[in-house]
């Protein structure tokens, strides 16, 4: 006796099966989705058609064979490299072992004299912003150059001669995030807290774990949350492309000038004249605090800039 459930189409099992089979999108209608506008007519140039046949593995046997060989050999290569590296790990000194070569006088001095020489209670900050400040300057420039590259690729310039005659307004609307009440209410509470926490992490970088990189990332995340909840019109009241430029250029220039001064005096054995202050006080450890602020601002701006560029190609 076979029994068919009356409202099988509405049962959980049916929905589940449909979902497994990929016929239903459970998130449909619940998310903000941008549907690409349909093109007027699909016109394919004849040579493009030919190119498609050449690069279609189902039609080009040689390409198919090559693809297989390529995948197999790259897998083999990666496994080989992984094997070698894992094998070599067995020969490395044990992590945290007292006799490990990394625990030598070089590292020892950072711990023993770090406080006295840099004035920073947080040795890590003292190391990256004083002992090895040149590397950190390089790292900030990596972020800077990365934003430049993303700008080259994604920034949409309305006054560019390359865009003349192209429509730019049509897309404006789709950048507006959905009016989500829950998100807005939650971010009203969270965003100020996130900002305060981020600023705390930056300002206390020389006293407690944290610093410019981590604090800047927190502030940047707060900005992104804010823009998601309230849209670009709200953020553009205080953060535009111009603000971004001013903050980045000012921070990096200050970093460059301050550190040049520090390197110059250091190498020529001159006194800097910058007091280290009382270790543990907020205004202490010389240049580390202002440098942390600079790094924090650069990182926060970079994070937000990436988001804005990917989202709508500008600020």
């Amino acid at each position, binding site marked *: 006796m076979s029994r068919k459930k009356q409202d099988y189409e509405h049962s959980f099992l049916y929905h589940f099966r449909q979902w497994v089979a990929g016929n239903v999108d459970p998130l449909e209608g619940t998310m903000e989705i941008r549907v690409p506008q349909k093109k007027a007519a699909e016109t394919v140039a004849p040579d493009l058609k030919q190119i498609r046949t050449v690069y279609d593995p189902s039609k080009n046997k040689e390409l198919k064979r090559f693809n297989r060989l390529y995948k197999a050999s790259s897998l083999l290569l990666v496994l080989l490299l992984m094997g070698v590296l894992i094998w*070599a790990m067995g020969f490395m*000194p044990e992590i945290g072992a007292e006799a490990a070569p990394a625990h030598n006088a070089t590292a020892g001095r950072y711990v023993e004299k770090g406080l006295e020489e840099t004035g920073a209670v947080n040795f890590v900050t003292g190391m990256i912003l004083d002992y090895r400040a040149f590397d950190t300057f390089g790292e900030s420039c990596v972020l800077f150059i990365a934003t430049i590259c993303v700008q080259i690729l994604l920034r949409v310039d309305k006054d560019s001669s390359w865009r003349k005659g192209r429509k730019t307004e049509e897309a404006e609307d789709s950048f507006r995030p959905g009016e989500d009440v829950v998100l807005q209410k939650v971010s009203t509470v969270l965003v100020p807290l996130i900002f305060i926490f981020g600023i705390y992490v930056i300002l206390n970088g020389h006293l407690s774990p944290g610093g410019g990189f981590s604090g800047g990332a927190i502030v940047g995340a707060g900005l992104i949350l804010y823009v998601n909840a309230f849209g670009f019109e709200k953020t553009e009241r205080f953060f535009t492309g111009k603000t971004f430029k001013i903050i980045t250029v000012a921070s990096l220039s200050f970093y460059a000038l301050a550190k040049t001064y520090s390197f110059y005096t250091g*190498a020529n054995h001159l006194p800097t004249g910058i007091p280290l202050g009382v270790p543990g006080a907020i205004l202490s450890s010389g240049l580390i605090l202002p440098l942390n602020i600079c790094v924090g601002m650069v990182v926060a701006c970079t994070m937000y800039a990436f988001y804005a560029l990917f989202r709508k190609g500008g600020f």
Partner: protein
Amino acid sequence: MAFVYNFPLFSIILSMFSAIISSVLSGKWAKRVSLIMVCLVLLMSSGLLVYTHSTGEAVTYMMGHFPAPWGNEIRFGVLEAVMAVFFSIVMLLSLLGGMSHVFADVEDTKTNLFFVLIDMTMSSLLAMIYTNDLFTGYVFVEINTIAAAGLIMIRQHGHSLVASIRYLVMSSIGSGLFLIALSILYGITGELLMVPARDGVQVLRESGNYSLPLLLSLGLMSVAMAIKSGLYPFHTWIPDTYGYSTTTASAVLSSLVSKAYIILLIKIYVRVFGYAYADAGHILNVLFVLGLVAMVMGSVEAIRQRDVNRMIAYSSVAQIGYIYMGLGLGTEAALMASLFHIMTHAATKSMLFVSMTGLREASGGKTDRRSLSGAGYRNPLAGITFLVGSLSMVGFPMLSGFISKLLFARAAIGVSGKMLPALLVLALSTILNAIYFLRVVITIYSPQGSDAPLDNVMDDEGHVLTPEAYQEAERAKLQTEGVFLAPKAGALVKNGPLMSVAMVLMMLLNFFLGLCSGPITEALLAGLRIFG
């Protein structure tokens, strides 16, 4: 301490600072800032060269208030100064040579970003030349990689986007391997600065501890730098990258960016691990063999190319092979030859790319061989520059290529087991170079279509054609094949004034390297002795 010793710091910071402020300037001002910056760096490096040459010693310069094992450090002697001077000259000439094309190839609101990338590249090149710290080396390798990817991409052309993704993927693998190698080295020596790391390596070699991680670290560093500079099996990113970028970018990438990695690798060999250790670990042998293969395969691939820009790019594969072959020979003379070849190739390749742009303009923007025929008449200066560059690559006496081939051959003599292959491949590669370079030279100096037919040519109906009619028919045939046809009345193409100046100066530089190589090789040798 002499004031001159501050110049490396000033030149690195100056180039970074100009990158930072160029990001808010207009394209025109960013260009001026860039040019002034490169000129100042050139002046400062020349001052440093003169001073270090007279004192003849290497100087370590603290970057901050803390000495060697704790703080960052840079170090410079004659060799570093020569390279800095030379790199800034080539950078300046490449900038001048491609200036008008920068403004044509780059979106007009983003031209200032191009100069940001150029300034950052300059700073990272200088930092890689001067650094005495492995981690600083890594940081600036990163800057160099990202800036180079930007330089390729900035044309925003389908080909250049693909090329830049390929470059980024390959180069990131290189950076990743370098970082892993660095971590291993730090784990077993506990040092990041080069001189203390050398002492650590020395201790490990004597005690025999951690011999496998040590060798692995050296191997990974070599592979990483080989990938980044495009040694033969890792060369696949080269042709698209150099072939489809804007002129200045191609010239800078091929002649400077890939060379800085090799200089860093030489520094790691000589200063950290010791050349003898690299030799004992057979890593030099591997590099030697790969270098030889690259010398042949790069040229063979170049011969197969129809597009001349890509042909020049493939020739870079062969030239990088020369440099690694010299590294692999493992003697001081060979190392010096490699360093000289770095200069030769930098001077010549940038010249070829700039002159190729001139020829391309005279051929309706096409770079396949048939469109280029007769281009040497339509753009005489670019033609002559290309001729000089080609002859230098082939190794014609009086030009720099001849000197580097001579130095390589001399260095190979007496190296047991490597002499014969090195000399044979050197000869073979010279012939292959001649085949593809002189073929293009002949093409650009032969008129389009052939003049008069050798025998009486008949058309379909059996009438004998007059030479004029024959030429017409030939031209019509070429036109249907999509080949550029020059107007008959040999229209001359005018180069911009900056480009002409750059091409003349590049030729002079090449002649200078070829005719006055004595003092340069002496300075390189003296620098190499105090390099370690």
